[in-house]
């Protein structure tokens, strides 16, 4: 059963197409994210679902029923706005009670439900406080409670963590996921931050210039991207530009623009020889060696000089400048028992398995 379905949704503003032929299905009770760079049409898509914009064409179904033409206040989807939009002239209790009052529920029920939802979000007894008396993270939870008290079919969240500072953002990521479990409601989450999308979601749609590039679980997007854009946007990657010179099975031989050759796995079908391609290699797939050994047949090896070390605990990186000038990021273990340690200026050999390099048609190119 799908709580929310989009069918070839398109939205044009004049001659500009903000959302282009987007289709998706969100299963009940799941956490679905839309991930894309700024201006790709995420908010426009969400506003169509909430009913603030009419789609130019296509259909939106909530619990199987089309809602195109239904006014926003008759749709059972609630929205957490980017800047939360808590009502400043009401206290917390009144903010949460607003939707219930609109529905015409009686005072006793309203009071009970407001108390219950505040308990669930872990802020019991704040009814009488003013909005300005709460911290950023608390306001966040109130904004969610204000929607959840109405038991919506789908909760829409438009970059709700954007306004928070980094530390709180990390914390709220986990909390949001827990809240979603607790309320057992379908969440549709918009973000331009890939780590938010990867951590929280059951499914992620990667969006680019109004189109969905790929929809799938986070692991799939990370390990099996289908386009160059997804490979580059989701997670960190090293990118090599070149031209496809030969293919054998699912292996591609690429002549790099910077000189040299590289073998990588074909990430997509239908590439012809001579096409402009990009090869993506994740930093954690690369290992650095101080000595030059004979490279195994299914490994790629390149040589370079250590440029700098970026220490970040388990995520530490080694920046290596190849002899042709390309810069590469490689993972770097720095624990007590770690092997070779490097200093800037050292010569290193970087190796990775051929299957860890993914070859796609270059973006923009055919």
């Amino acid at each position, binding site marked *: 059963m799908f709580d929310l379905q989009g069918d070839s949704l398109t939205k044009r503003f004049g001659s500009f197409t903000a959302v282009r032929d987007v289709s998706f299905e969100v299963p009940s009770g799941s956490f679905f994210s839309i991930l894309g760079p700024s201006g790709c049409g995420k908010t426009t898509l969400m506003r169509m679902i*909430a*009913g*603030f914009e009419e789609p130019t064409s296509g259909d939106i179904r909530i619990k199987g029923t089309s809602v195109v033409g239904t*006014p*926003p*206040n008759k749709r059972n*989807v*609630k*929205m957490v*706005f*980017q*800047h939360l*939009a808590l*009502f*400043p*002239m*009401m206290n917390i209790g009144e903010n949460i009670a*607003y*939707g219930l*009052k*609109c*529905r015409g529920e009686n005072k006793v029920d309203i009071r009970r439900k407001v108390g219950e939802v505040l308990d669930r979000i872990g802020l019991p007894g704040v009814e009488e406080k003013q909005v*300005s008396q709460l911290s950023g993270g608390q306001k966040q939870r109130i904004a969610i409670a*204000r*929607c959840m008290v*109405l038991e919506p079919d789908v909760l829409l969240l438009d970059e709700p963590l954007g306004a928070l500072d980094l530390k709180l953002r990390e914390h709220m990521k986990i909390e949001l996921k827990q809240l979603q479990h607790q309320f057992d409601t379908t969440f549709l989450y918009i973000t331009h931050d890939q780590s938010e999308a990867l951590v929280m979601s059951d499914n992620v749609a990667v969006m680019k210039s109004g189109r969905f590039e790929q929809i799938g679980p986070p692991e799939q997007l990370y390990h099996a991207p289908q386009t160059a854009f997804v490979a580059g946007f989701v997670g960190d990657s090293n990118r090599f530009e070149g031209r496809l010179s030969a293919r054998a099975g699912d292996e591609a031989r690429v002549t790099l623009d910077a000189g040299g050759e590289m073998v990588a796995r074909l990430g997509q079908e239908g590439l012809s020889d001579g096409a402009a391609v990009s090869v993506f290699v994740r930093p954690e797939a690369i290992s650095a060696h101080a000595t030059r050994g004979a490279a195994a047949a299914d490994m790629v090896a390149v040589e370079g000089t250590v440029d700098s070390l970026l220490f970040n605990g388990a995520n530490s990186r080694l920046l290596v400048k190849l002899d042709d000038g390309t810069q590469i990021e490689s993972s770097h273990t720095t624990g007590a028992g770690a092997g070779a340690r490097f200093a800037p200026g050292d010569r290193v050999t970087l190796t990775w398995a051929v299957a860890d390099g993914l070859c796609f048609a270059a973006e923009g190119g055919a």
Partner: protein
Amino acid sequence: MARSDAGKLSLILLMTPFLMWIVLLIILPQIGIGYLSFQEKVGPRQYVFGVGNYVEFLSEPIYWNTLLRTAWMSILVTILALMIGFPVAYYIAKIARKRSRAALFLLCLIPLWVSDLVRAFGWIVLLRETGVISGALQSVGLIGGPVELLYNDITVVIGLVYTVVLFMIVPLVSTLEGMDNSLLEAGYNLGGTRFTVFRMIVVPYAMPGIVAGCIIVFMLTAGSYLTPILLGGKNSMWFTEQIYTQFITRYNWESGSTFGVLLLLFTSAVVWLGLRLTGQNLASTVAKE
């Protein structure tokens, strides 16, 4: 040390003209008028201190009736100005597109370019027996003979609303402009109808502007002189006219001062009552975070 001296100096320089203005033009004259109002005339150039002027005011129904009438009509004008000004302000602040907003606002200010007097005469040109409207109605054949549209309460109220509505629009536009559209969208999204969103979100949000606008408009109307006299003629019975008569025609400054003090006290009382009844207070209106 030098810093704080400079700070003090600039504070003094800033405050002096302001304080002089308040003291010389507002406080001193009011004290003078207050003092005069307690002077009873007992003979030529002979005065004693007493409340005789106030007793005289109360014992003459025409005086306090005029004051009450002025207050009622001012309240009516304030309500009408709010009802007309709110949609206009809402349109300018929220519906009009960014570019046309400034133009619309300027358009509202244009009447201020023309003096009060000239504007009132404009109405007279339109409304008098031989005026534009009467003539037009006759030529269309809707009425048989000329009609006098001047010198009645409706005309006075219309004229006053027209003069003061701008002072309602300006504070309303500035409060409404500060309202984030997402508040309205959240209002609809959570299930509100147009009416609930208006009543529970727009009006409470605009309340400081509404209160400020109403106070300004009420005070301006109650204290206005030209419009009621020119459009209402002898029938207007506006309290400022009584004050004028006492000061200028009768040359009875003591009585005129008494009326002045009473107008100030009475309008202040009405404003205070209005604030109490709507549960607002002046501090939250003026100093909104």
